[in-house]
């Protein structure tokens, strides 16, 4: 008598099952969104990601030619300017996005990690930009590095993060910190995809009536899904 034994899943299989379970393809790349995702404020999240793409693309061109190239060629200066303005647009988009998400209380419904990763992206982007400013090899780099050292030294950070060391700052700027920003952005986007875009607050005076109306309308009203039944109330 022989018994058929189910083989134990491999590590790869387990990772695949966990990943697909957490983010099935239709959730990872959905082709529809809740109807409330209809405001200009939603543009600033993707504008931030788009700015990051332009920053990295222009930064790669500058990295390919080396740190001094942009000082003595017009093409180099052109790419440096694109890099600078993309950074300005990145921070602008990120700040508007953060304010928008704050006023939406976008951490509701188990989305605290989405907020936390977003906030950490902003905080990691600040030294990423700073290391760029001190790697410029011009007067700005001289002045900013000699000023920034005092704040960093005062809390002991200067002992291992020396803003007057061009080589160290350049390494942080072209590899370590951008890698951290990109990793955080990927984690942030995956968390958004997993939890979905935060639903609107239920209007106090509309909550009861809309629930009744939703129940009455049934599934016929839905564009792609079941009818609306917002029960989202304010956090304490």
């Amino acid at each position: 008598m022989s018994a058929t034994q189910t083989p134990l899943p491999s590590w790869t299989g387990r990772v695949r099952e966990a990943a697909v379970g957490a983010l099935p393809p239709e959730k990872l790349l959905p082709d529809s969104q809740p109807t409330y995702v209809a405001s200009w404020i939603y543009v600033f999240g993707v504008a931030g990601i788009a700015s990051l793409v332009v920053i990295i693309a222009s930064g790669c061109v500058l990295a390919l030619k080396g740190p001094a190239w942009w000082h003595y060629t017009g093409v180099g200066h052109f790419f440096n300017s694109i890099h600078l303005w993309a950074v300005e647009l990145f921070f602008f988009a990120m700040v508007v996005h953060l304010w928008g998400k704050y006023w939406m209380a976008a951490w509701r419904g188990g989305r605290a990690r989405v907020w936390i990763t977003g906030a950490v992206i902003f905080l990691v982007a600040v030294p990423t930009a700073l290391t760029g400013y001190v790697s410029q090899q011009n007067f700005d780099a001289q002045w900013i590095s000699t000023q920034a050292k005092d704040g960093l030294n005062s809390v002991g950070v200067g002992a291992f993060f020396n803003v007057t060391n061009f080589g160290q700052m350049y390494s942080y700027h072209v590899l370590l910190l951008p890698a951290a920003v990109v990793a955080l952005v990927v984690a942030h986007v995956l968390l958004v995809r997993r939890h979905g875009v935060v639903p609107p607050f239920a209007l106090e005076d509309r909550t009861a009536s809309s629930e009744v109306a939703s129940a009455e309308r049934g599934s016929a009203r839905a564009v792609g899904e079941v009818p609306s039944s917002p029960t989202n109330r304010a956090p304490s």
Partner: protein
Amino acid sequence: MSRVGRLRSNDDTTPWQGAYAPYDLVKELCIAIGVIAMLAILLTVLFSSPDDRPSTIAQWSRQQPVNFLAAATKELNDTSDTAEYGPPYNHNSDGQHAAFIYLQKWLGVSHPINTADDFVIDPLKTIPNDRALQSAVAEYQAAPEQTRKAWGEAYAKPLEERETALEEEKTPTKAVAADPATGTVTVQASGAGPVPMMMGSLLDLAKSGGLDGSLLTSNQFFQTDYTRPLLFMADGGLLAERAEGQHLLGEQWGMMNETGSYPGQTWLWLYTLWYQIEPFKSSENADILVMMMMGALSLAFICIPFIPGIRSLPRKIPIYRLIWKEHYRAQQSA
């Protein structure tokens, strides 16, 4: 309510069970990249980017030879900002602290700098074929510390008097004579021992560009660490003079700005703001106080979802009605 109870949110937001509409995320991202790239190119064409040439020690010593000599003499006498800085450069002070927190001291000296040796004596030793200078250096090094200090102070005094007089727009002392045409400086200082010869040679070395290279030299060929030349220059007046002209000083919102009329690091506005107001503005420990304040605020920023009051403001101030205007209008008309 208990403390834990207050931290716990009454959030009962449930997953959306309502209608969905077609939405092409990939198309949106591609369009956004195109728009942002075009916007960045437009801003580049309109405004370019700043690139003011860096200062050098050679430039500083040629343009401001008296200021250079005054700063270099302070380096020799261990009285410059760098000499008295403390960690991570030396043990000459504890650095900044907040109450009992001495992070600067606790993390120690990781980039050791002896300003007298590294900025003055060692570069002078690299000058070849000058027996008189090497004798002066040897005499200086062989002298007791008290004698070296007396020599240094005797030489520094007229230089500092001249610098102070110029700052206060008074008639400068005649003990220091600078020839703008040749860049030579004559300092009448009695009792300064070998220091006048040493500092004269250092000025010549600096003007030739030799000091720039000398401060970068270490025990290896390739160099990327500009700590020593930058700290030396920051102890002088040239960088600050250029910075003031470009509105980059601390009281001018400092390093969040950049040269020219460019936005700079506007995201550092809150960090820079504290330096403009009391008690930070006049505190000897302003840097650590500002950094600790920003550390606390950054932590609070991350933890907003868990901070009672702050997390409830969005519900109380109805900006969300504007954001989800279409959604609420559709609800009303349903």
